[in-house]
Every structure is written in C-alpha cells, then in structure tokens.
C-alpha cells in the first residue's frame, strides 16, 4: 500500500520556482513557434513560384537570364547565386589570413598589450552598421579601385573587400578563443623539445586548432552570404555573371532588397524574390550544418 506523501507547505521559493519555470517555458515555446512559422513562411512563399507553374526549379536555379519585367519574363537566378558565392569566397580568402594573424598576435605573440589593443578595435568593427560599411566602400574603396585598376571601381572586388572587413571580427574572435583555450602543456612540451616559437605555431598550434579556425571561417562566410545592404551599394547589381572582378554583378541579397519593395505581393517577380530568400535560408542551414560538423571534429 502506497503511503500518500505529506502535502508540503507551499513556500515562497516554490512560487518563485513555478513562476520562473512557467515564464521560461513560455519563452521557449514562443521561440520555437516563431522559428517554425518563419521557416514555414519563407518556404511556402518561396515554393509558390514553382507551384504556379511559370518557372521550373531548374530554370530558376540554372537559368542565366533575369528579366522579370520583359515581354516574356524569365527568372534565371543563377547569376545571383554565382555572385553570392563569388563574393563570399573572395571575402573569406581575404579575411581568413588577416584574422588568423590577428588572433595569433593577440594570443601567442603579445598576449598582454596586443590583446588589449586589438580586441576592442576588432569588437568595434562588428558594431559598425552595414550601411556605414557600404558608404565607406562607396566613398573610399570604389574610387580607389577606379583610379588604380580597370573598370569603374564598382563590382565584385569592391563587394568582396567590404565584406572581408565585415567578417574579420567573426573569424578573429572565434580563432582567438580557440587559440586561448589550447592546453598550455602542448606548447610547453613543444618548447621543451627545442622548437622555436614559429615552429610551435605552425606545427602544433595551428594544426590542433584548425577545426575551430575553420568554424570561424564558416561562420564568417555565413555572415558574408547573408549581408545585404553594404554589398548592394558597391557591387553594381547588374543581373549578369561578371566577366572580371571589376565588373558589376549581383548577389541574392542585393536583388531581394532592390526588388522587394517595388513589387506587389503575389506577382511572379515578387514570388521569384521569395524563392531567392528560400535559397538563402537553405544555404544558411548548410552553413549551420558545416559548423556543427566541424564542432564535432573539434571535440575528438
């Protein structure tokens, strides 16, 4: 026979516990609902282009002609997908070595004043709004490129340069965290074996932290892929695959921001923009998946 537990006196902390738990459960539930509805919203709007039968998926993904207002409208988004990947990869190529050097400088070379000096500066970079980056790009980088290199300054190169500065803080801070959390004895044993600082950095520190550094780079690329305003201002936005780095091109985000306000909901043009938003969202999932994969490798 079970003994009924004696009913506990309800004390103040029980009520607080209850309120806290309820509030948290509510917030979590709300968060889940918001995320699910956003994914559902973008997906349903994005798919409507293909459901209506005007455009097939392969026409959309691999078509190279974008002319939504033409007499025979065509919705080939390949130039934008290519443009997005191009600027993202270029930005990562420019920013990664710089970020790695900054992180090494802060953690290995001069951890004292180096970190005190560089950290706030790099944190500052991540706080600058993207419209400011775009305007600096337009006022400084574009005229510089126009005067020194062929083309009109505006184009893929300007976009990649602006983006590389924007993703510097992301890569640097992740890489610096990884380097700082490296067990001290690894370095000490390396020095004890007679290795120089450079040998320790290049043969021990970087290989060990490589997955974490890659995580930072992927996070940076995710940011670059989704950045809209700054890129839109300097890349030129012609709907073509660029023939050179100094020619006008478009990214998925720049086309969406340029067109979304000027088109009416439900029109084929507007639906095609939502399909691009869906592509962007799926790409974000891929980036998140990559980061998770790298994290798992990092743990072993």
């Amino acid at each position, binding site marked *: 026979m079970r003994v009924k537990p004696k009913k506990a006196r309800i004390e103040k902390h029980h009520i607080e516990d209850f309120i806290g*738990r*309820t509030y948290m*459960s*509510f917030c*979590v*539930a*709300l968060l*889940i*609902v*918001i995320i699910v*509805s956003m994914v559902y919203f973008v997906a349903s709007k994005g798919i409507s282009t293909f459901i209506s039968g005007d455009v097939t998926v392969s026409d959309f993904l691999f078509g190279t002609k*974008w*002319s*939504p*207002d*033409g*007499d025979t409208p065509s919705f080939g988004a390949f130039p934008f997908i290519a443009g997005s990947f191009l600027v993202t990869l270029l930005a990562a190529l420019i920013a990664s070595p710089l970020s790695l050097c900054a992180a090494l400088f802060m953690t290995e070379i001069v951890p004292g004043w180096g970190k005190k000096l560089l950290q706030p500066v790099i944190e500052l970079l991540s706080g600058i709004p993207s419209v400011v980056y775009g305007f600096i790009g*337009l006022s400084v980088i*574009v*005229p510089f490129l*126009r005067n020194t290199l062929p083309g*009109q*300054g*505006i184009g893929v190169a300007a976009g990649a340069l602006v983006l590389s500065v924007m993703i510097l803080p992301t890569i640097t801070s992740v890489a610096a965290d990884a380097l700082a959390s490296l067990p001290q004895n690894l370095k000490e044993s390396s020095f004890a074996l007679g290795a120089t600082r450079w040998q320790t950095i290049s043969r021990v520190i970087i290989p060990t932290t490589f997955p974490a550094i890659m995580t930072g780079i992927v996070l940076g690329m995710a940011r670059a892929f989704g950045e809209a305003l700054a890129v*839109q*201002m300097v890349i*030129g*936005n*012609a*709907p*073509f695959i660029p*023939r050179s780095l100094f*020619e*006008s091109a478009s990214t998925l985000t720049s086309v969406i*921001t*340029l*067109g*979304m*306000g*000027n*088109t*009416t*909901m*439900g*029109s084929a*043009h*507007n639906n095609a923009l939502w399909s691009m938003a869906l592509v962007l969202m799926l790409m974000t999932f891929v980036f998140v998946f990559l980061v998770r994969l790298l994290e798992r490798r990092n743990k072993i």
Partner: protein
Amino acid sequence: MQFKKSWVMTLALTSVLALSACGNNNGGNNATTNNGGTNAAATNAPTETSSGAELSGSILASGSTALQPLVEQVAEKFMDANKGVDIQVQGGGSGTGLTQVAEKQVDIGNSDVFAEEKLKDADAAKAATLVDHQVAVVAIAAVTHPDAGVTTLTKQQLVDIFTGKVTNWKEVGGADQKIQIINRPSSSGTRATFESFALGTKTEDIQGSIQEDSSGTVKKMIGETPGAIGYLALSYLDDTVKTLNYDGVEPSVDNVIAGKYPVWAYEHMYTNGEPNATVKAFLDYLMTDEVQSGDVVELGYIAASKMQVTRDVAGTVTTK
C-alpha cells in the same frame, strides 16, 4: 512530469493563437470608429457623425519612399490642426503600398506609378477597387558626369545609349569617353517613368551597367564616375552632375507644368474604395493651395493642381 508537459503544450497553443490573431489584425483600421477621447469630441458625442464633428481616428499610409517626405511633413501639420487625428507614414516602396492598400492593411497606399501598372494579370481586379488621388508630380531628367561633354540628347540618342548601341560619348557629340550607365532596378517607379516617357520603350539590363536603388547614391555615382549617365528627379539636381536637355527642352518646373517637358509622373495616394471622412479630409488638405504652393514646392515636387496637362494610365496627355 505530466503536469509540466501539459503546461508547455498549453503555452505553445496559446502563443500560436496569439500569433495568428496578430496576423489577422489588419494594421488598426479604426479610422471610422470615433474614440471620443478628447473633450471636444465628448461634447459632440454620442449622436455625432454629422459634418460638424471634430475629426478623429488614425490614418496609416505606406509605400513610395519618393513620396514619403511630403506625406510626413503634411501629416505633421494636419495633426497639429486636428488633435484627434493620428497619422503614421511608412515607406517600403510603391509595390508594398499598393499591396497593403489593396488588402486593406493600410488606409492609404503611396505609389510612384498607376496601380494598374503594378497590379496586373491575376491582380487586376484589386486595382479596380482602388481610388486614385494624384497629389504631386515628379519630373525626371537625364544627367551625366560633367566631363561627358553633351548638353542635350534626342530621344533616339537616349534609346541608343540605354540599349547599348552607343557606347562612347563621341558618337553623340561628346568627349571621347566610354559611357557608363547608372540605372535603377527594373522594378523601380523612377525607371518605369524614364523608360515610358523619355525612351518610349522598355530596356533590358546591359552587362556591366550599374544599378543603385537610392537617388542619393545614383547622384553620387554619376558625379564621381567618368562617362556616367543616369536619371534623377528634379529635386536631386545640383552642380555635381550635368543636367541634359531632352530634345532641346530644358527640364524645368515651368516646362513640366506647361506640358513641354514630357518626362514626369504623378505621385499617387490610393485608397481602397472612397475614403472615410478623416482620410478624405487629409487628402483634401494635401490639395489645398497652402500645401500645393508650400510644402510641395519646398520639397522639390511639382504641384499637381498647377499642371496644365493631365495624363491617364495609357499615357495619353490632354490639355486641361
């Protein structure tokens, strides 16, 4: 445990309901309901709705960013004069404004183009319910970098430039310099106006052309890029760019009003059906001489009431 789970479920359900309720709430269309919160309204209440009552309620307008500054400024004045009225003006673009007014999410949809031009095919029925109020006119001029060396272009020359047939300024009597097109996005109202009335044809984007969305950026790019050509509303023109005559006609306010300069478009404020008393009073105020000769001119638009010509959706111009 059972208890906790049911709690989470209940919360999830309530939040779903709360969210869906938000979705159905169409942006506070309570302009018709007279809240009667003020003292003045209380004296007229509760049997009012007669013409003598003080205006109250809220107006929500959204759409064209080109028209936004004018509506905002006039709304401030209107609210000062009518304490019971609350007007909110949002941007978002002409397409957004037309969509939202057609779906009754806002009271007024601001647009740079006729609704019929944006709401086509399946949406044509939506355009039919909208009532057009043309509050201002915006004229657009072709502009170049000052060193391009041309002062006037004919319609055909502009078409050749914007379709990529002419790629060097010397071919149209200017300097020996490559032409760089600074365009607006294909969905832009300004581009639609320029193409319809200056070029008379739609143009395809050209590889290597540049597209910028804001007039400020377009002006900056044209002023800085050698050989650049683009188009701007008259209110944006200054000495950093060279304003071109069109077929020999100077793009001046007087020429637009007289119907001599053809590259202009109405700024529309659409209501869904006939507007209610508060919205109507606001739209009427926009057409008063005080606003048309004051705010409209001050902000660089051209007064719709002064135009000596009118134009319909099809682009047919008739003298008033």
